[in-house]
């Protein structure tokens, strides 16, 4: 495994937890984002994720660096899966360790928010009667997102 990676196979969360754990860490938070069956009343059959892999891994590492600057002493590992994912499958795992629990919780939530803003990964929902690439429409920003 890598500390920040895009993977094409099922995510085993234990290795990311093990990666961030060390003797001074009194807390480890693990967040997993999973495929949800129902979204706004529409039933998802499965999801297809796609990524610009080299840039996505670079952005994940940048998010990790932002987190370490904001919460000194934490350790971070993040993985996002691409390809076809079924209901309940893990799409993303974020593992954060810290000496005390508050930083691990806060930093973990920060990570998923930033992933949804800047990491070039796209999700297509496939339903019984159609499919669509998901993504909030927005105008070109004055300054590049994530810079």
């Amino acid at each position, binding site marked *: 495994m890598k500390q920040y990676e895009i993977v094409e196979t099922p995510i085993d969360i234990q290795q990311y937890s093990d990666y961030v754990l060390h003797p001074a860490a009194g807390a480890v938070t693990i967040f997993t984002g999973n495929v949800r069956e129902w979204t706004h009343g529409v039933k998802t059959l499965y999801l297809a994720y796609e990524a610009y892999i080299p840039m996505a891994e670079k952005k994940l590492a940048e998010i990790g660096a932002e987190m370490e600057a904001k919460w000194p002493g934490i350790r971070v590992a993040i993985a996002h899966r691409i390809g076809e994912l079924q209901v309940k499958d893990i799409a993303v795992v974020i593992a954060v360790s810290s000496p005390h629990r508050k930083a691990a919780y806060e930093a973990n939530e920060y990570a998923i928010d930033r*992933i*949804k803003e800047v990491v*070039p990964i796209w999700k297509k929902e496939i339903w019984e009667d159609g499919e669509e690439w998901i993504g909030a429409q927005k105008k070109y920003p004055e300054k590049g997102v994530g810079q």
Partner: protein
Amino acid sequence: MIQVNYFARLRELTGKGQETLDRDSMTVSELLDWAESTYPGFGADTIQVAVNEEYALIDDTIYSGDVCAFIPPVSGG
């Protein structure tokens, strides 16, 4: 030559993952205009451009040898 990459909706719209443009330089704005006129429905006003794996500004210049990517609104997580 400038390389451009397409992902997600744009990969399906253009029917290709990448192509090269025979240009020495152009701005991000010019690249988006080219894409919109070449591929109707591209939606250039919602798309960011990455140059060499970093988000670029609309007035930035792209040079031959650069690798660009059109980044539609992301939806990871």
